[in-house]
């Protein structure tokens, strides 16, 4: 909630500042500059590059600020780390009271820390001082009675913390944390957590970069990063190619022949809306969890999309083109090769882009369920060991690769079907 408020504030502030600083000086260029109606004219709305840059930077700033990153100058208050203490007041069986002090050393989990040494002065009276070590973001129980004189006698109890009365199931705020009392009368100290995220929820950006280098050098669980990603890509490509190999001719047949169309229409129309992920259980039952299963799943994911796009490509041919080709003396086969297939290529490429995206999403999900190697397998394995940095790194890599696939498909499209949308 806090993060969201900060984000909205940055959004508004950046806009106001940008308008004040650059809004008047920056001149719009081109035809749009002279348009008086821009609200509602979609073509007059272009992405403000400054906004894009600020958007990305602010995401990293917030991320860094809330994870105590070294990359960002500003941080929200982190968890308390260091030495602190609180005083407890104990009442013994004879209703006498005495004060003792708990000395605490708070350190980040994983850092070797020792219990603080107790000063000599704390040994007077029947309530003796105690030493405690706690990890940041954690809490620790302490039975202060244990080392007190008469502490084991019935009726001995802690009645106040720092002068404030406490009873079982109550808590008292002290400097740098909270002391609470369990129903059995033990004390529990939780150092203040601050506003930063624990690395187990969200690691700092640099931790992820470090992890990326580490994993790409050493691999994860004896599997190289390139191998993990390579396997995922291999499955996608094989599944997609098989799906296209069957789907495109099927789509053509459906576009060209009424028997084929009638036969496969119900099948295609029924299978198309089923998300491929819903097929995972059945595919596992039929083909098992190894390559055969995953590739069958991706084949099914690509098949219907490619069938429908090929069919649409055939239906989309302008009848004038077919008539013209017949009038020019082309045979049916020549019309298929020289008119129908080239005419359907733009549609097929659009379908291929969608299919590749769906396949990439499906392969990751399938690997989450079961796999030996793969991008999805890497992140699910890391999540089981609470290695959040690897999980996030994996997610970012999956995003980048998915984006890269789409860019490649678009480039292939502009090279192979330059006439797209120009008919």
């Amino acid at each position, binding site marked *: 909630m806090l993060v969201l408020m900060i984000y909205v504030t940055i959004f508004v502030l950046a806009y106001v500042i940008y308008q004040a600083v650059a809004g008047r000086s920056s001149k719009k260029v081109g035809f749009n500059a002279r348009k008086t109606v821009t609200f509602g004219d979609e073509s007059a709305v272009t992405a403000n590059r400054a906004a894009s840059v600020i958007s990305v930077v602010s995401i990293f700033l917030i991320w860094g600020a809330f994870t105590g990153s070294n990359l960002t100058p500003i941080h929200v208050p982190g968890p308390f780390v260091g030495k602190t203490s609180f005083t407890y007041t104990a009442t013994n069986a004879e209703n006498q009271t005495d004060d003792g002090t708990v000395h605490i050393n708070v350190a980040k989990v994983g850092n070797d820390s020792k219990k603080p040494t107790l000063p000599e002065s704390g040994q007077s009276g029947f309530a003796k001082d105690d030493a405690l070590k706690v990890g940041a973001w954690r809490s620790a129980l302490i039975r202060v009675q244990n080392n007190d004189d008469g502490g084991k006698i019935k009726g001995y109890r802690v009645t106040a913390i720092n002068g404030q009365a406490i009873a079982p199931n109550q808590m008292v705020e002290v400097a740098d944390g909270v002391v609470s009392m369990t129903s059995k009368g033990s004390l529990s100290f939780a150092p203040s957590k601050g506003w930063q995220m624990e690395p187990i929820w969200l690691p700092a950006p640099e931790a992820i970069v470090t992890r990326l280098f580490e994993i790409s050098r050493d691999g994860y669980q004896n599997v190289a990063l390139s191998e993990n990603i390579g396997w995922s890509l291999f499955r996608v490509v094989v599944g997609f190619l098989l799906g296209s190999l069957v789907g495109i001719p099927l789509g053509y047949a459906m576009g060209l022949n009424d028997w084929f169309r009638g036969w496969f229409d119900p099948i295609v129309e029924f299978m198309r809306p089923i998300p491929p992920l819903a097929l995972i259980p059945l595919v596992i039952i039929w083909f098992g969890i190894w390559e055969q299963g995953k590739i069958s799943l991706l084949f099914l994911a690509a098949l219907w999309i490619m069938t429908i796009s090929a069919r649409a490509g055939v239906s989309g041919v*302008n009848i*004038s*083109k077919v*008539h*013209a*080709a*017949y*009038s*020019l*003396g*082309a*045979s049916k086969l*020549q019309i298929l090769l*020289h*008119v129908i297939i*080239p*005419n359907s*290529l733009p549609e097929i490429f659009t379908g291929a882009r969608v299919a590749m995206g769906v396949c990439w999403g499906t392969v990751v999900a399938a690997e989450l369920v079961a796999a030996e190697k793969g991008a999805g397998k890497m992140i699910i394995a890391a999540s089981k060991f609470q290695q959040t940095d690897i999980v996030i790194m994996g997610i970012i890599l999956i995003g980048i690769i998915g984006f890269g696939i789409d860019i490649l498909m678009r480039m292939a499209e502009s090279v192979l*079907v*330059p*006439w797209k949308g*120009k*008919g």
Partner: protein
Amino acid sequence: MADEKQSSLLIDNISMTFNLPDGSSVEALKDVSLGLATGELLSVLGPSGCGKTTLLNIIAGFLAPTGGQIILNDHQVQGPAPERGMVFQRGALFEWMSVRKNVGFGPAMKGVPEKQIRTRVDELLEIVGLHDFGDKAVYELSGGMQQRVALARCLANDPDVILMDEPLGALDALTREKMQGLVLKLWKETGKTIILITHSVEEALLLGERLLVMAPRPGRIHKEYHLPFAEMGVDADLREVKKHGDYGSKREEILSMIWEMEEEIMGRKE
């Protein structure tokens, strides 16, 4: 008609009735008969729904008539064939081919050797004024140039009859005028039989050696004219032709004829 026996193209008693899914039927054409001699230029005019495009599609062989037959050079038309070339309004070029490939499509389908195709295509591109554009993609050309490609592509097959379905309908007025001149030039130079369907009375007058006005419901030939303007336009500026006294009066006559038909259709609908 007297000249039917010498005609190269005979439209013999063509009828076309479409059965609609709701059980009713539409008579798109009823008993249309016409003979065309080789080298005649016929323009067909009529209000929408008079069946002129249906007639053209029947001649081209894309539709089988419910009655009658089309005879070209003593044989009956059974389907599309390269002897009857077709020029469409737009969208019939193959965008995935260069201008050269488009023009050479017909010969290439017949298996004519590459070299012969090349010389033929170069000739045709010269004739239609596109000699510098052979290697361009068709989508890089303007609408008028695309129609020039369509004309050249049709001529590359050396058809006996050229069927034009509003070939200039999508062009702006200026380009249209230039293209009208080109059509006349091609007609005179190649001596082809041309049937041209149009919506424009002016175009029908300028490009029709014979002009057919068709009437709707059922589609039929309403009136036929023999006109001098096409012959005049071959060598003269088309704008000069339009100043001819006869041209103006014919235009008014045909316009009011078509207006009457349109009004009749509207009246029937109400």
